[in-house]
């Protein structure tokens, strides 16, 4: 039977002539997607810098430039930050026109104290007050802007900035504003994870675990390994198994590079309402329809999910890490593409 099925599929499919792919059209369409993201980043930078500098710019207020202050936000249920591309951005209980505030996209980072994003290489935080402030007033504008990561145990965020002319990764307490630690790095450095003050830093040489509190550094894995997430005592990785001393303290779980761990490290969230256990327990099935497609872990540890609707668009829910009922957050038209969760490029 197996042979018959295999033969049938190979007979039929191997004989199918593949049309030549239209590379030009693919590149054109891909550039449009990239262009939208860049425009979004630029738009957000303009608006948010405007919000910050509205009182200080010498050439008039932010309002004069056609940008309005974001206004107070409510992060008490997590950031609940998601976007309906081209239509609206939802953040902290507010709905903002997408054209006004597009930059808080999947490249920004959602932290319990607000969204961390870059404007021309300078890191900013958009807190509940709705008034963005720079995290590094002395940062030099530049291209070193690795995606920031939030710590689920502490109000800390890891981000990059060019300080004193050198690419630097900084861990900062977004509540007090105090620096936890910083480390000079190479310009190709990527921040893969931050948990309990330990930052997974990857460059072309591989991944190291930098403890920003103690100032220690340990090798974690070679260059082919990607640390997808670290939560609790679990390290989620893709590629070759991490074998450095920096990985010794963790339970190693293999998963997709775009998968996420729940904050307790007990489950893996990966494109499905069924979360696989990282231990010996069974999977966790969220109270969502089976066709739920897009997910992220929110800053309060709950799970945001988008479920496609008949006829287009999707419905967004906020689910506890349990089988309990999910809260309906709203619906997205979906005219401009798939739903986006801020800080999560699934």
């Amino acid at each position, binding site marked *: *039977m*197996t*042979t*018959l*099925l*295999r*033969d*049938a*599929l*190979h*007979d*039929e*499919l*191997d004989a*199918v002539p*593949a*049309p*030549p*792919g*239209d*590379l030009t*059209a*693919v*590149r054109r*369409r*891909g*550039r*449009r*997607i*990239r262009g939208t*993201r860049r425009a979004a980043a630029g738009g957000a930078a303009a608006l948010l810098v405007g919000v910050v500098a509205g009182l200080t710019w010498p050439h008039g207020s932010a309002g004069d430039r056609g940008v309005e202050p974001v206004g107070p936000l409510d992060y008490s249920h997590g950031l609940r930050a998601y976007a309906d591309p081209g239509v609206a951005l939802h953040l902290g209980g507010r709905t903002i026109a997408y054209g006004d505030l597009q930059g808080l996209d999947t490249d920004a980072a959602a932290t319990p104290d607000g969204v961390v994003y870059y404007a021309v290489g300078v890191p900013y935080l958009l807190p509940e007050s709705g008034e963005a402030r720079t995290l590094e007033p002395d940062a030099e504008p530049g291209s070193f802007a690795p995606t920031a990561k939030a710590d689920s145990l502490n109000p800390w965020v890891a981000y990059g900035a060019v300080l004193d002319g050198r690419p630097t990764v900084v861990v900062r307490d977004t509540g007090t504003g105090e620096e936890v630690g910083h480390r000079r790095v190479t310009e190709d450095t990527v921040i893969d994870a931050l948990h309990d003050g330990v930052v997974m830093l990857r460059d072309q040489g591989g991944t190291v675990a930098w403890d920003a509190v103690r100032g220690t550094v340990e090798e974690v894995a070679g260059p*082919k390994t*990607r640390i997808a997430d670290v939560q609790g005592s679990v390290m989620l990785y*893709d*590629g*070759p198994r991490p074998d450095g001393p920096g990985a010794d303290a963790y339970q190693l779980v293999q998963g*997709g*590079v775009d998968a996420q761990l729940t904050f307790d490290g007990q489950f893996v969230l*990966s*494109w*499905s309402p*069924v979360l*696989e256990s990282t231990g010996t327990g069974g*999977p966790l099935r969220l109270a969502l329809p089976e*066709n739920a*497609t897009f997910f992220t872990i929110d800053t309060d540890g709950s799970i945001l999910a988008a479920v*496609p*609707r*008949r*006829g*287009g668009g999707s419905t967004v829910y906020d689910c506890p890490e349990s089988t309990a009922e999910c809260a309906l957050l709203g619906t997205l038209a979906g005219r401009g593409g798939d739903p986006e969760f801020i800080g999560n*490029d699934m």
Partner: protein
Amino acid sequence: MDDFDEFFRATWPRLFRTAYAVAGDAASAEDALQAAFARVFASWRRISSVDHPEAYVRRMVVNEIIGDRRRGWWRRERPTAEPDQAGAAGRVQSPEVGVADRQAVWAAVRALPVRQRAVIVLRYYEDLSEREIAEVLGCSPGTVKSQASAALANLRRNAAVLPNGDLA
């Protein structure tokens, strides 16, 4: 971006056939592939750094097809034969496993629901393991097992040339 061009040219034909098998027709397969590769191009720096970019793209393509079917954007289930017809073809008795049998099997595969069809194609055409299929479809290996079981039951029903027994 030259390495993207190379990747595109090298993987397009293989991925097209998989997309064709899951989608059921060439136009849908091409649409899904074009859309997926555009997203790959937009994020090429990140995607090219993963260990198996082709597996990543395969997942995007398959989910593009399944997602679009689920969203109802496409109403283009186009099996070449209705299940009953496939069953009739499959009931042609032959002492040999011949061309007619394989055609009956293929017709029955095309008549499967899209998710079951994806499982069968990924398992028996792409030779992926249950775990790998689960990663492609974003579900648990247990779900893959149950989908495969349902698919094979449907195939047996609709293409009687398939014997009973463990097919995994």
